[in-house]
């Protein structure tokens, strides 16, 4: 197998795994830029995945056909945004510890999701969906030599994720909303004196994060696993947090980190079938994203600085 042929196999898989990571990491950026730590991303993805599958199954029964997974993605966004209120309300209004909340919400999500699945289907996991978002060859583009590796066997959700990264970058750095969101995460009291409603901005940050997290979970479910069980989302949320940090809280950085981590995941899964890569211990590929993130935080791979006021509840009138 030539190197190029290896890439033709690996890149589509990498893209598939990178897609939910990128979307969830973008969600994390909204929340953390507004000053709220979002460890709950994992749980939000669980809820998103469950919603995605349950909605797809229901819509298919109702006859929505191949459109059902796409509608399910939108539903998952809404449900994710609503579910993130479990983080937003205690963290922003009641000054609860955000990390503790995150851990609790992750617990809540998996408990609630399986509970609902059992209520609906009387078993611990759902059936497989009939219509998944299919892998396709993009017409025309998939004929270009070399570059075609990005356009064969690919799901359109991947392009959505990449486009979203640019959109989020634009929103965060170019619009008044983005300026205000960042000001609230850096120096909420300064923002408050400038007439910016810190509570409102933080709610928006967390709920956008919920919408993106929900979408990410649903994308993973309807493109990769195609059913929902207790082990559908195991660590993707935390991996997305790693991508967010490795990308230095910048949407384009998160895009790069997400693609890179997706690549590592793809190699660890299909690497044993490929020449050269099968000599790399699988363990190394599995732990690479996490180890690299630690190194990035330690400043050994470029310093990563969090928004200044992230994790600190804003108490009006306190200096």
């Amino acid at each position: 197998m030539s190197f190029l042929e290896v890439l033709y196999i690996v890149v589509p898989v990498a893209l598939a795994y990178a897609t939910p990571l990128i979307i969830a990491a973008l969600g994390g950026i909204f929340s953390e830029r507004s000053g709220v730590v979002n460890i709950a991303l994992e749980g939000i993805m669980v809820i998103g995945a469950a919603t995605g599958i349950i909605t797809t199954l229901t819509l298919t029964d109702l006859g929505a056909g191949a459109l059902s997974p796409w509608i399910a993605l939108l539903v998952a966004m809404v449900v994710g945004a609503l579910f993130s209120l479990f983080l937003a309300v205690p963290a922003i209004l009641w000054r609860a510890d955000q990390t503790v909340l995150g851990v609790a919400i992750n617990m809540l999500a998996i408990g609630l999701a399986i509970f609902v699945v059992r209520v609906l289907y009387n078993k611990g996991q759902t059936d497989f969906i009939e219509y998944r978002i299919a892998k396709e060859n993009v017409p025309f583009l998939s004929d270009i030599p070399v570059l075609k590796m990005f356009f064969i066997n690919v799901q359109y959700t991947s392009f959505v994720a990449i486009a979203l990264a640019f959109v989020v970058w634009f929103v965060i750095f170019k619009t008044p909303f983005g300026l205000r969101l960042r000001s609230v995460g850096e120096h909420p009291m300064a923002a408050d004196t400038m007439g910016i409603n810190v509570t409102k901005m933080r709610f928006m940050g967390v709920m956008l994060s919920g919408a993106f997290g929900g979408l990410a979970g649903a994308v993973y479910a309807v493109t990769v696993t195609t059913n929902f069980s207790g082990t559908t989302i195991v660590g993707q949320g935390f991996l997305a947090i790693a991508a967010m940090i490795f990308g230095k809280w910048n949407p384009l950085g998160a895009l790069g980190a997400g693609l890179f981590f997706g690549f590592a995941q793809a190699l660890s899964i299909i690497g044993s079938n490929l020449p050269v890569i099968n000599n790399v211990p699988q363990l190394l590929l599995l732990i690479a994203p996490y180890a690299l993130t630690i190194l990035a935080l330690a400043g050994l791979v470029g310093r990563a600085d969090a928004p200044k006021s992230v994790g600190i509840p804003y108490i009006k009138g306190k200096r």
Partner: protein
Amino acid sequence: MLNIRKEFGTFVANDNITLQLRKGEIHALLGENGAGKSTLMNVLFGLYQPEGGEIRVHGKKVDIENPNIANDLGIGMVHQHFMLVEKFTVTENIILGLEPKSGMTIDRDTARKKVMEISEQYGLKIDPDAKIEDISVGMQQRVEILKTLYRGADILIFDEPTAVLTPQEIQELIQIMKRLIAEGKSIILITHKLKEIMQVADRCTVIRRGRYIGTVEVDETVNEDSLAEMMVGREVNFDAEYSKADPQQVVLDVQNLVVKDSRGLSVVEGLDLQIRAGEVLGIAGIDGNGQTELIEAITGLKKPESGKVMLNGQDVTGHTPRKMTEAGIGHIPQDRHKHGLVLDYSIRDNMVLQTYYKEPFSKRGLMNYKAVAEKAKALIEKFDVRTPSIDVPARALSGGNQQKAIIAREVDRSPDLLIAAQPTRGLDVGAIEFIHEQLIKEREKGRAVLLISFELDEILHVSDRIAVLYEGKIVGIRDPKETTEQELGFLMAGGQRGDETE
């Protein structure tokens, strides 16, 4: 503002205070630390809601529920602790919350143009594209002023604006304030510095312990003493004479010391300093000229780059804080909440913060809390620390009593060198006098006392010798009896570098 009342729980921060600002005047609001000045202004700016009284702007009664309404009414505030986002540019900070738009994006060209226009109109020079973290404190203050002007403020509140400025910057600020008045603005100046009031204010309202005392015209009939009396409530003798010092052998000898700050810049640059037993050496200087780093190097909190710190003839350069303490240094830190006390620990546990590991408080790795309690009781009595019991957390004590507790702990160890950094910051006059007396007492016991303060009055009042610190160097040593504030101010601003008298 009429009959304003503001409570925090059972504590009344403002009780029936009235302040009337006329158009085109500079109106000073005078009061001691904790008198309720900032609270009153935060009520006016909409950060707090008053429990009683009413606010009228141009004769109309208004409810200022949040800063937005204050902005709409043309009230702007220049905060004491600057409300600036460090990672943002000057322009971004000014337009935040009121951004000019083109389509969906921020119209940065228009924003910059508008900022430059206002900056030129009022003579506030700034670089619109610089990041806040890269510009000087004086420049940051100008950004704060521009923020209010950009929002069309007619009434500007300056909250202790000179606290962090050099004398030159203070003069510039005064010019800016006069220019603002000339352009038709009105200003409320919050301060506890009498000199500034005499210099710029038209009228002055005085409050004491949350109560309204009176409003006076600032003219020939008032002087600093009469204002001070109003502020404190009794006659203040700033010139209490202490006995003469009798300096003995050198206790601390700092030689050619270089210390870098957290960003890696040398902020103490080849500093030489000697303190003798039985004298108080005051270090005068504007904040940020290396005071913090100098103390950190002497107390072992930071390793110096080069140079020597000698204590009683022993080289202790770069030793750990523990070793420095054991070598005979006592330290009343600048920030008592951050460094001086573990606020969540009881008074009992705070009293042995440096000695907890020694007998009788600790034996074979176990604490003897009975011995700790006895020590704490003895110290509380001796230094008159007012606390309901030794078991209450230090957090529950008043600032003055917290500081007394720290001094009790530090002095009790009989250190050869006592470092007092801003020991009276934020305290009322009674506590200030007590602390000054304690410093003199230590001096009379034959200890060396190093006093660091940003208040020239305090330096002049307590010191036997004054060393002026500028850009990390001692630029002059003066006798407090022979020097003047003007001369010291000149040196503090870098007026006469290298003119050492010793």
